[in-house]
């Protein structure tokens, strides 16, 4: 990060020396802080409330509709956090989009890479689906699945498609909001039927969570891939020809 206020320094040699001293001083201070915090942390571990939420959280898992305790926390006990976390991702992407159109893509791939891409991408998508499904009873879930989809997008962009294989802008926008939208609507629907916001009836919990997770997976995948693209989708804009069209 460049800071204009510090741009001019009178004497570089002395300033550098002072800089180094400052860095060292800071290092010593922070090291002391680290040691102190470790001591305090040890105290907290020893005297702290040992089971914390673990036993309670594990005990209630059978009522959550899923078997993986982490998924239970993410999508049931603390579903509201997850909803807002999806909103954070959306906000970051909207921020990226607000900064301008996507930069140029990559040169087209050679045969070896293309060969790899042609079967890594489907594999990633399959793995994503697997992650999503497995999340109900074993480690995995929407975020990991979405990250795999996003990685698929990354590799597609690396292989030469500047839009990372994403659909047009309108579709992208809908896909992006899909996760939060389904999540919120399910929550509100439950509230409307008297259960309370994001309070799943045990019988429906499994399916509602799966629905939310599927939507979230798609949204996360699209958001991560679009974040890697790094700007507004350009294909729809006649002013910006797709950079990959330029022969190089």
């Amino acid at each position, binding site marked *: 990060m460049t800071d204009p206020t510090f741009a001019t320094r009178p004497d570089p040699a002395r300033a550098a020396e002072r800089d180094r001293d400052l860095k060292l001083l800071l290092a010593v201070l*922070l090291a002391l802080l680290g040691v102190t*915090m470790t001591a305090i942390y040890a105290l907290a571990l020893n005297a702290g409330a040992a089971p914390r939420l673990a036993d309670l959280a594990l005990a209630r898992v059978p009522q959550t509709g899923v078997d993986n305790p982490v998924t239970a926390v993410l999508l049931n006990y603390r579903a509201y956090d997850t909803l807002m976390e999806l909103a954070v991702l959306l906000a970051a992407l909207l921020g990226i989009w607000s900064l301008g159109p996507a930069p140029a893509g990559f040169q087209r791939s050679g045969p070896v890479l293309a060969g790899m891409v042609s079967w890594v991408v489907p594999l990633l998508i399959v793995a994503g689906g697997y992650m999503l499904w497995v999340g109900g009873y074993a480690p995995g879930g929407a975020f990991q699945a979405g990250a795999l989809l996003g990685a698929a997008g990354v590799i597609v962009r690396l292989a030469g498609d500047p839009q990372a294989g994403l659909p047009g802008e309108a579709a992208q926008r809908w896909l992006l909001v899909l996760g939060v939208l389904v999540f919120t609507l399910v929550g509100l629907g439950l509230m409307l039927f008297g259960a309370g916001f994001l309070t799943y009836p045990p019988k429906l919990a499994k399916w509602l969570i799966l629905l939310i997770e599927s939507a979230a997976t798609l949204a996360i995948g699209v958001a991560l891939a679009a974040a*890697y693209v790094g700007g507004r989708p350009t294909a729809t804009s006649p002013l910006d020809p797709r950079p990959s069209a330029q022969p190089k």
Partner: protein
Amino acid sequence: MTAQLLYGGAGLMLFVLGIWSFLVHEPLLRKVIALNITGAGVFHVLIAVAYRGDAAPPDPVPHALVLTGIVVAVSATALALILGARLQDSDDDA
């Protein structure tokens, strides 16, 4: 609880290391890396707290918190890096 203390302490070291780097290094990329390391330090502490030995199942709550934290961190990283890219573009134009 040796492992908890070991990993938690390492997390705290990562935390201070990240902060130190954030404070002393100018380039954006290094600041972003520093922040991610700081974050990793905090996650370390949380995961260490969740760990209850190899026999007992770990506490799922901190795991979920860390997952959320990771998404937040990557979102922020992406935004920061692209903000930096735009900044560099405008420098190049100037």
